């Protein structure tokens, strides 16, 4: 760093301080993030995380310099995209990812921006009176017609397929329909913690699956407890119930009258008789009068 400007040395030093004083270091992409949203994000992260924008080569330098102390942190250099910045925190990296995702907001489609997923115009009433907008819709490929005095989209239509740029016309149509298909927010590209770099796809946690897993775990434990007759306070009632049900079933199948099964068996005999009677009810004289009505 012989001929490196003093401010650059200072910047790298500050980055290194930030890196060494936090457990978790991440790379975020701040491209297209309005200043206001970044400010709000910083506020909601509060003391839990700091975000620092810098030059890519300086950040890479800082990672290299820290690599002895934090082994493998230079792996983060692969994830510099758009306008990268460093985020430093002591938070669980999965939680950091969740906070950033939860803070994403929807925004209108800007001309030229790339659709991260299919942008769809849904079927249904647009609320517009018949007019030139109908032609505009049809021009961009949306099937629409007049119904009960309104412009109605006949069926769901992919206006901008995933990966394609938003055209000027599409942007205008979406804006008139009030559809805000773009997600604006800070993308966490990767996170370093304890010698490992986690890319964003690993950081994404599926809460619905976790909920289902919890329910499944409980069900499995409950089932096992009842099946193996291992009494617990949650399952003892079910175990008794299961023993009672099975015993009753056996008694009924064997036609054994007991205090618990006599009513069942008499009811069953009658139900079977009535069912059989209904099978022959259309034959004159096969049934006694009391059954024919």
């Amino acid at each position: 760093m012989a001929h490196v400007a003093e401010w650059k040395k200072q910047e790298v030093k500050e980055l290194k301080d930030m890196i060494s004083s936090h457990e978790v270091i991440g790379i975020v992409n701040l491209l297209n993030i309005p200043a206001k949203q970044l400010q709000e994000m910083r506020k909601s992260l509060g003391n839990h995380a700091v975000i620092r924008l810098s030059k890519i080569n300086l950040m890479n330098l800082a990672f290299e310099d820290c690599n002895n102390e934090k082994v493998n942190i230079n792996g983060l250099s692969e994830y510099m995209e758009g306008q990268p910045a460093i985020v430093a925190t002591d938070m669980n990296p999965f939680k950091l990812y969740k906070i950033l995702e939860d803070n994403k907001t929807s925004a209108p489609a800007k001309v030229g921006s790339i659709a991260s997923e299919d942008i769809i115009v849904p079927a249904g009433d647009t609320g517009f009176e018949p007019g030139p907008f109908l032609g505009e819709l049809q021009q961009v490929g949306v099937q629409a017609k007049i119904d009960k005095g309104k412009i109605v989209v006949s069926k769901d239509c992919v206006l901008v397929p995933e990966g394609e740029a938003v055209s000027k016309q599409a942007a205008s149509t979406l804006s008139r329909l009030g559809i805000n298909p773009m997600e604006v927010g800070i993308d966490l590209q990767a996170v370093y913690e304890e010698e490992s770099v986690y890319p964003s796809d690993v950081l994404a946690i599926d809460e619905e699956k976790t909920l289902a897993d919890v329910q499944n775990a409980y069900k499995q434990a409950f089932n096992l407890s009842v099946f193996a007759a291992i009494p617990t306070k949650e399952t003892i009632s079910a175990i008794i119930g299961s023993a009672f049900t099975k015993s009753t079933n056996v008694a009924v199948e064997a036609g054994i009258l007991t205090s618990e099964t006599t009513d069942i068996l008499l009811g069953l005999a009658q139900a079977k008789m009535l069912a059989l009677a209904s099978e022959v009810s259309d034959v004159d004289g096969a049934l006694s009068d009391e059954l024919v009505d």
Partner: protein
Amino acid sequence: MEYIYAAMILHTTDKEINEENVKNIIEAAGAEADDARIKALIAALEDVDIDEAMETAAMAAAPAAAPAA
């Protein structure tokens, strides 16, 4: 209903459901057997799958069993 029960006894004990057997059962109960009715019942039962019919009764009486399964 006694005629139907008589048929069900014969069915359960794997005996033939015929006029004579039904009549024997009714008379063994000390009741009077009506030949015409027995004939009609036997004829009507000829085309009935008795096991299925009785099982249907059990199921209809217990639709609740299904969701529990």
